[in-house]
């Protein structure tokens, strides 16, 4: 069952603008499945602090997620799902093509 306060951090990569997520090691990943999930406000604060990497990313912010049955964070808001998936209007731009996982 989804936890009301589950959050991850997203940003855009400085060099190519790609949507990225902060993982548990303080690195940035393009795979939302590898994003570190904060379950408490303290953990979210810690993620925020770790995301302060202005030479790597632009505009990091927390987003609300819920874990699916496979434990993968799925954004609650459709805007963040579109950010994760890529434009919905051309199959060749779908970021999920680059990944091998079932949401």
């Amino acid at each position, binding site marked *: 069952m989804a936890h009301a306060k589950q959050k991850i951090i997203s940003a*855009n990569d*400085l*060099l*190519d*603008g*790609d*949507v990225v997520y902060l993982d548990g090691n303080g690195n940035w990943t393009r795979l939302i499945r590898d994003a570190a999930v904060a379950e408490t406000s303290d953990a979210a604060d810690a993620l925020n602090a770790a995301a302060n990497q*202005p*030479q790597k990313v*632009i*505009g990091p912010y927390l987003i609300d997620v819920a874990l699916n049955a496979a434990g993968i964070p799925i954004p*609650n*808001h*459709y*805007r963040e799902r*579109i*950010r994760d998936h*890529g*434009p*919905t*209007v*051309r199959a*060749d*731009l779908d*970021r999920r093509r680059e990944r091998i996982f079932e949401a």
Partner: protein
Amino acid sequence: MYRYDEFDDAFVRDRVSRFRGQVARRIEGALTEEEFKPLRLQNGLYLQLHAYMLRVAIPYGTLNGAQMRQLAAIAERWDRGYGHFTTRQNIQFNWPKLGDVPDMLDRLAEEGMHAIQTSGNCIRNVTADHFAGAAADEVEDPRPTAELLRQWSTDHPEFAFLPRKFKIAVTGSPNDRAVIKSHDIGLRVRRSDAGEIGYEVIIGGGLGRTPMVGQVLRSFLPKADLLPYVEAILRVFNLHGRRDNKYKARLKILVHETGIENVRGEVEAEFARQMTTVGGPKVLPDPAEVERIASYFAPPVFEDLPEGAKRYEIARRADSVLRAWADTNLSEHRQPGYAIATISLKRPGEAPGDASAAQMRVLADLAEAYGHDELRISHEQNVVLPHVRREDLPEIHGILKRHGLATANAGLIGDIIACPGMDYCALATARSIPVAQNIARHFADPKYAQTIGEMRIKISGCINACGHHHVGTIGILGLEKAGRENYQITLGGDHTEAMTIGQRAGPGFDYDEVVPAIERLIEAYLVLREGAEETFLMAFRRLGAAPFKAALYPADDKSRAA
């Protein structure tokens, strides 16, 4: 068309060189994002939802074959093989990498293009009628005026940090195809009673969250007074425009809050002050320079052709597909034997305004082979061949067909304006492109579209209204409601010289409900109209909103009771 002289070329290349250094310093860490952001925006570089976006200026929507080919090359080398033509006659590349942008700008400069002042609180790329220089109803080509304004406004130090962005549009025809009444300044070339050419000056128009129809500031401005007068408007705006609230900072708000009479008084006083300055107004251009600019827009050397084109007429009679395209996509040219051809970028199922690099090259080839090397981008997100011989239309149409560019829907229900929406834009609250795609697919039958007749559907993915929804016959505004995309429908908008802001019909619709809602509106119109010659807009004006609202919100739809 205008060609860069040595000054223009050096200026643009110097700007690219400076930006190259700024990008390098950002990547090295010498510049923070806060420091870098205004610099990149001044060079047309945004950060969007998934990637950076480079907005390239196409001044007054005019470009030649070599320029279009260069855009294609850039799309292939540094982007993903396509570009998006916008409602301000620009092109956007949606996937550039930061480190590549200076190289992209260098390539643009090779063909006299740039991305300067396509963003930021400055005077933006000046737009114009896309039929300029070709339209049969034209008083004078508006592009020399637009080019003069471009040169005057480029890097203008006094107007680099305005309260908010500032948009100017120019038309040379009484039939407004440049939406001038939705701009901060709209200029309409006209003749005075004495036959002198000058401008009607309209100010304070705008769409966005507070739509306003521009008002006449001066019914006739002599041509020579243009720059000091426009400068006076900018000075009044710069002084009194609100800087405390970005949503109240546009000229339209100043005009609305203080009244057109007060603004007129201020502008006329400032204009008079400039004209009586010792030594004369500092921005009165040298007539020789005005002449030089105008010479670049001299009409092509047209052939002396008969009105009818025999070969074309035979082909037209024999080919119903060519006939359907000609009936919708051709406009009257001032020169006998010629036509203006609108090339629709609205093939059902495609994103409005998108063109692949291959299609751009076809357009470049067509311009060079058949169109006096001229192309135009329309604010309706189509491409125009402004000067083609009617005799050549069968060949042109055949080439367009082979490349997916012969969609016969200009001005019809499938010719939809749509902003990038949430598929690309960081500001969007909902998607707009797939809504346009769904509508275009639903109404893809050309016969049904012809039966419906003239129809302007315009879709914006947020309240900023880049998709001009306020002035659509049917406008669609994508918002968020309770965590879902929700689409408000407006009716009766008009983007022409009789500009009207559409009326909101009622509660919004879920994404999947939009197409059925549009279908109900169309069915109602077809029943209500007095004949095929009465367009949707005419029927709406005759009948009012009530019967259309009744169609949109049927009584048995309890879930939607407002």
